[in-house]
């Protein structure tokens, strides 16, 4: 069923009783060309692009919970391509370009809102770093702007210009960055994939990976064995657990990242703003809640909940950056489990096991990558080779010495 203003009008006149399900609820078939483990944003996008771009439609997505139950529905909805390193920037820019056409392509409004992201800096060293980053973006043809303190004062008068421990001296702006409605991204890709014949199988947990002669032949699930020619893992947060079923040992540690939302407010913050003297970032949703977060809690965790001390620290950073947040009340805190990789960058690659493909290590940057991750993973699965923007995202880059370390923090995952 096609969505449009007209369809809304017609259905409304019929009491909204004529809407049809956004996707089917199929029983698994015995065998698929491709099975994707994980019905989150990346898995659903992979299925969609496999069907749409590469003509592979005999595809199942198996999801242990409900569609979009992982990090695609827990993030702070930021979309951007302001990376510095050559292994990352072309990939994220490819993603942003896909975002820009996504709604019309999917016939689903994911509310991409290109409000601009402003990354604040507070000292000369940070400034130089952001200039390097901005120029790296522009090398890739991505517009970036440097804002001085006076410009920022006019744009964001509520920032702490007068009493800051670390004064704001400027910022880097990417205007095309912004936010999108996270759940809608999962739903849009799910509906799009379903319409192209992909089976989306919810409440179906993978319990084992079957191998015959070393080759992956299918997955054991709570709904029985399902065979496949190619198996693709897109289970960020649980990558190690699923990978372990195939004997994979991975450069991943699971960590919890908290996110927060305030009570609804009339529009007061237009941009996505990130703090340079801490990890705080904030934006305002269309519903009016201020959505924000900061650093990961720092310890290995599979629990989707955070601790109070970290939450307090996040608020400290918040009121330090925007003093006027002080009287705003925080409504809800939640946690997502991150695949923290050893260099802070993701992996889209084959594995040492034939027919087994891997998409993981998104740290806390996976949401913005959703379309490109799906596209490039589908490309890899369909063609057997990496998409050119994802060539650096290899699994063996660690042993071969080609890390993509945006933070320069080395191999300690909780520092990325």
């Amino acid at each position: 069923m096609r969505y449009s203003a007209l369809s809304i009008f017609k259905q409304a006149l019929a009491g909204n009783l004529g809407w049809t399900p956004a996707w089917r609820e199929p029983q698994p078939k015995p065998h698929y060309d491709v099975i994707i483990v994980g019905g989150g944003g990346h898995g659903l996008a992979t299925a969609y692009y496999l069907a749409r771009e590469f003509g592979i439609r005999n595809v199942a997505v198996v999801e242990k919970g409900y569609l979009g139950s992982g990090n695609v529905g827990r993030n702070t909805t930021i979309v951007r391509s302001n990376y510095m390193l050559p292994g990352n920037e072309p990939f994220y820019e490819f993603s942003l370009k896909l975002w820009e056409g996504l709604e019309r392509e999917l016939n689903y409004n994911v509310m991409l809102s290109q409000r601009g992201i402003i990354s604040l800096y507070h000292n000369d060293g940070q400034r130089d770093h952001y200039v390097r980053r901005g120029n790296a973006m522009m090398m890739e043809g991505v517009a970036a702007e440097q804002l001085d303190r006076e410009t920022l004062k006019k744009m964001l008068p509520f920032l702490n210009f007068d009493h800051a421990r670390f004064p704001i001296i400027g910022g880097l702006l990417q205007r095309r960055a912004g936010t999108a409605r996270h759940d809608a991204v999962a739903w849009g890709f799910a509906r799009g994939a379903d319409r192209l014949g992909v089976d989306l199988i919810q409440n179906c947990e993978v319990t084992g990976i079957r191998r015959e002669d070393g080759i992956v032949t299918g997955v054991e699930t709570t709904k029985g064995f399902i065979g496949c020619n190619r198996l693709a893992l897109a289970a960020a947060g649980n990558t190690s657990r699923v990978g372990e079923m195939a004997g994979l040992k991975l450069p991943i540690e699971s960590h919890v990242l908290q996110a927060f939302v305030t009570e609804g407010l009339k529009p007061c913050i237009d941009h996505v703003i990130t703090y340079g003297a801490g990890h705080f970032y904030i934006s305002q949703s269309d519903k009016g809640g201020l959505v924000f977060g900061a650093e990961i809690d720092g310890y290995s965790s599979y629990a989707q909940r955070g601790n109070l001390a970290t939450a307090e620290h996040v608020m400290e950073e918040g009121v330090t950056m925007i003093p006027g947040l002080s009287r705003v009340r925080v409504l809800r805190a939640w946690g997502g489990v991150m695949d923290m990789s050893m260099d802070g960058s993701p992996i889209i690659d084959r594995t040492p096991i034939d027919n087994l493909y891997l998409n993981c290590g998104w740290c806390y940057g996976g949401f913005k990558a959703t379309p490109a991750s799906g596209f490039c993973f589908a490309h890899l699965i369909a063609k057997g080779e990496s998409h050119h923007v994802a060539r650096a995202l290899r699994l063996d880059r660690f042993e071969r010495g080609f890390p993509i370390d945006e933070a320069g923090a080395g191999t300690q995952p909780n520092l990325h």
Partner: protein
Amino acid sequence: MASLISCPHCGVRPKEEFSIRGDATPVRPAPMASDEAWNDYVHVRANPRGRIREHWQHVAGCRRWLVVERDNFTHDVFSVTDAAAGRGGAQ
């Protein structure tokens, strides 16, 4: 994660007094060990869900490195020991 950590030297202290490094299971290989052993040590993590051992340092206390054995799903802490004690080192 635990809101409190029971440091074997300082007693029960708030989590914020500690810093966390990560998995305490990998042991630094001998200098001449295989490339694979070294790659595993630096880059590969078993990352199980459940009982794990993790390196924490009591930075705002005794500054000792500790091994915290805990469950990373329930966040129960089973034991906190001095890392050197486990390796026969001097205290």
